[in-house]
């Protein structure tokens, strides 16, 4: 008799354990389906399971809806930022133009040194503003995915000569030795955007190199990539910061007094990445940095 009771109790326990396992298994399956996006509410009956399924479905739909809404709002805001920065561009260009005209006029007719100084400050400030809004526009374009790189196999030379034109004067002014090793190599890239990316890196190098230092650019071909290398003898980047310099809006503590937004290197990396290449940095503090931009040698099919 006792044996019978024990058996009965055992079976009852086994039954409930089994049921619990089934339920857990079903919920697990449901969550797995939800994660892979295959979830659908199938059963429509009075069971608890069906109620859970229904709530799960509702939750997933809500999530998706909020996500889509956020996405469209984000796009809208970005388009607006892009618009506004583009429009400010025209006004700033006007301010620069008219302050230049004014400067000329005053030189011809008034010739007052105080006025001249004021005017030159206005022009400089406007130029700085122009630079910032230009960056802002590029940034928002990138966010909206308007960096459309058209990849083409071409010579690197035009990039190098454009960089020479752009920075030689500045380097001379800063008393930095600026050397570019011309090269006949070809790689797959978008001319306009790559110029932008290299210019950002060079600009950065010049910014953190003191008078008497040097900035040099060289090109080297490897089996899969062609590397454009920008090395300087500047302040260098501490190792703990090296991982961060390519993130957006990152400003080194040491660089906090220099002008800038912290997006130049970010743009450079995004552009190089969009072209199938990569960018890396080697740097020793107080010795200098070396930025290497690797561009694909041939199109990857």
């Amino acid at each position, binding site marked *: 008799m006792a044996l019978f009771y024990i058996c009965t109790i055992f079976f009852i326990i086994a039954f409930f354990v089994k049921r619990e396992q089934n339920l857990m298994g079903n919920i697990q399956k449901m969550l797995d389906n939800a994660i892979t996006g295959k979830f659908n509410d199938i059963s429509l009956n009075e069971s608890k399971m069906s109620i859970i399924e*229904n709530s799960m479905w*509702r939750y997933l739909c809500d999530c998706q809806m909020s996500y889509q809404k956020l996405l469209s709002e984000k796009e809208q805001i970005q388009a607006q930022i892009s618009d506004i920065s583009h429009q400010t561009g025209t006004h700033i260009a006007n301010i620069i133009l008219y302050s230049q005209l004014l400067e000329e006029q005053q030189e011809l007719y008034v010739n007052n040194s105080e006025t001249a100084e004021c005017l030159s400050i206005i022009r400089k400030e406007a130029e700085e503003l122009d630079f910032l809004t230009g960056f802002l526009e590029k940034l928002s374009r990138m966010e909206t995915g308007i960096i459309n790189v058209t990849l083409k196999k071409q010579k690197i030379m035009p990039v190098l000569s454009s960089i020479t034109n752009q920075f030689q004067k500045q380097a001379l002014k800063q008393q930095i030795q600026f050397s570019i090793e011309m090269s006949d190599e070809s790689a797959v890239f978008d001319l306009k955007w790559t110029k932008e990316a290299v210019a950002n890196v060079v600009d950065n190098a010049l910014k953190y190199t003191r008078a008497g230092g040097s900035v040099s650019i060289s090109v080297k071909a490897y089996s899969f990539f062609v590397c454009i290398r920008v090395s300087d003898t500047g302040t260098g980047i501490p190792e703990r910061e090296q991982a961060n310099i390519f993130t957006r809006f990152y400003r080194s503590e040491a660089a906090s007094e220099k002008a800038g937004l912290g997006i130049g290197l970010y743009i450079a990396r995004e552009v190089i990445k969009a072209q199938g290449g990569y960018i890396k940095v080697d740097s020793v503090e107080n010795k200098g940095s070396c930025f290497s931009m690797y561009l694909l040698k041939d199109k990857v099919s």
Partner: protein
Amino acid sequence: MLILETKDLKKVYGKGGTEVYALNGINLKVERGEFLAVVGSSGSGKTTFLNMIGGLDVPTSGEIILDNKRLSALSDNELTVFRRRKTGFIFQQYNLIPMLNVWENIVLPLKLDGRQPDEDYISEIVQILGIEKKLKELPGKLSGGEQQRAAACRALATKPSVILADEPTGSLDSVTSQNVIELLKITSAKYRQTIIMITHNEEIAQLADRIIRIEDGKIVG
């Protein structure tokens, strides 16, 4: 994301030479979270249409897909559960149960489904709709506007995918009508509910995101 799609929906009454088309080929798509107003003169087929979406009536031909479910494929039992969980109804005549107080009326659909009412959520919608002081009262003691707001609460309580409202403001004065609809809009926007509302009041219809007009069983714009 679509919540409702109807494909060539038809409803025919009578046979042979005396056929009457209550609905004559309705194709409609409604997005999740949309507030849709259906207008049209009486006898145009609005209510037939709404009843079909709610699974209260069966189409002669055509297809209704509501929240990813093909209604024609559901059995009677499934349809009952479906109605209970996925749809909330608001009628012109409120249809509150006179023996139950307002709170009991609101949580009734949840209790039927064997669910515990989510008190926080319900007290929130009760507050938004402004009937928190009337919860203990019987429906008979409430004004028309209050009764309709209680009915709206009941429709929202189960967090349905879609709320079907058939002339919800039919027996209310114009200011109260507008108030009730605005409140319904706020609640539905907050909890991302879809509303399909029938009305013949153009002013009320203007409050919706989109208006469709049904004439002689067809969508005319």
